[in-house]
């Protein structure tokens, strides 16, 4: 996946691909390519989401730990 790809950009692209596939504006020639790209984007977004969640939870734990001190 390209560097510096933001979640928003990835998600926007994913949405666009999904829309194209749903509305069948994608040529069958590139359908597989698009689906592959979509699956990469989904994986990328999920990874980002999961990593961020883990990190945020860590920070929240620190935050809660800090305020209880």
């Amino acid at each position, binding site marked *: 996946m390209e560097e510096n790809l933001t979640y928003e950009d990835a998600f926007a692209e*994913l949405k666009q691909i999904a829309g194209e596939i749903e509305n*069948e504006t994608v040529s*069958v020639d590139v359908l597989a390519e698009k689906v592959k790209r979509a699956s990469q984007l*989904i994986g990328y977004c999920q990874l980002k989401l999961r990593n961020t*969640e883990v990190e945020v939870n860590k920070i*929240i734990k620190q935050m809660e730990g800090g305020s209880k001190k």
Partner: protein
Amino acid sequence: MSDRSQLKLSQLTAVISAAMGDVFAGLTFWVIADITDHKYYPEKGHHYFSLVEKDPSQNRIVAKIAGVAWQQGSGRISSFEKVTGQLFHNDINVLVNVSVDYHPVYGLKVTLLDIDTNFTIGLLEKQRLETIARLLDEFPEFIRRSGECFLTLNNQLEMKPVIQRIAVITSLNSAGFQDFQHTLANNTFHYHFKVDSYYAAVQGIENARDIRQRFQDVLESGVAYDAVVLIRGGGSQTDFLIFDTFTLGEIVARFPVPVITGIGHQKNETIVDLMAHTPLKTPTMAAEFIIAHNRRFEEALNNLQKTIIIESQQLFSSGSQQLSYLNNIIVNSTRDRISRQKENLARLNQGIISRPREILMQLSAQLMMTSGQLISRPGVVLANRMKDLRVEIASLAGYTRKYLVNTSSYLEHFRSLIRLMSPESIMKKGFSIVYHKGKIITDPGKIGVGDDITVVFPTTELVTNVKEKKKRNGREFNL
């Protein structure tokens, strides 16, 4: 010299006393006057003072009389001070109820029996309104009236979210300041404060400049205070007039750090309260306000923290949902698409297989039909022709027969005609043929007398000589 009557002083004073008694005994007067030469003896509870009247234009004293307030009058003065917030002292204008007394030793005095609070309140209120009007008039850039309230530079300041560095302007050893300190120190949330005190006498109009100077000191300290607290705690409930002064009203109104007041009054707000950022009744309330203010910030922080936790979790879950939703769309749509394409292909394929067959069959059927037509058509034509021929033949036979019949009847006719005309039958009727020189003669003109003629009968020939020729009119042969 001897006839001059001589009196002892006491005799004279007795006369004066009697005369005064005659005129003033039992009478009291309500008098408007200024107070001056005031002295108070707390242990006895006695006030000594002078009533004066000044010429308003020249500030010259036009009347003056000594006065005293004994127990009764002092009691009235105390309640006056409580109600008005105005200390009974020099240079105040009052309406007092007095009796006029003369004492042989202490001379002429008025005794204060009562003091009119409403008069002074009205006066103070008038002064107050004048001071407010002057503030509005002279400093429109940082004091404005808005309905019942005043918008000042100070009370329009944004209080910092947390108040920690505090400058307190107060009198030394003020009970109010102790209350304030105590309340701050014992706050249940364990907030820490850095409090600097700026001491000033906070009673007596004459100290207004002093307090003003403390405000200046706060500014010049260079410390970035979050708030200035002005405390006048404890002690008597009197003399708030310092807080109604123009000089303090102005400094508070224009002060660049939010001013919190805890002046400890029970009545109307002072001008300083009106100009200040946060006017409160007591020092304790000022401290509580600061704690509550900080607490609000902490609660806001806690709420933000909670919100962040909740919102971020929601964000994650909605992000996951969106992703799986999109994933489903992509997967399902793609599957659908592919299976539909497959079906389309299959349908097309089938079409490609079956269609040519159909076309061939159609073509061969057409061919058969055409060839059938081709085969049957000549037969029909021939049959028709044959039929025509037969008709023709039949009619030809009929015509021939008729013709033959007709012809044979003609022939018969001609036969009988010929039979009739045959020389034999003609001769039988009496006629004979005449020849001359071998030729049949039909014109007698050509025969002359003497010519030999042969008359022929069927069985006989007569050779004769013409002896005579005569004309005749034979009409018996014309049928």
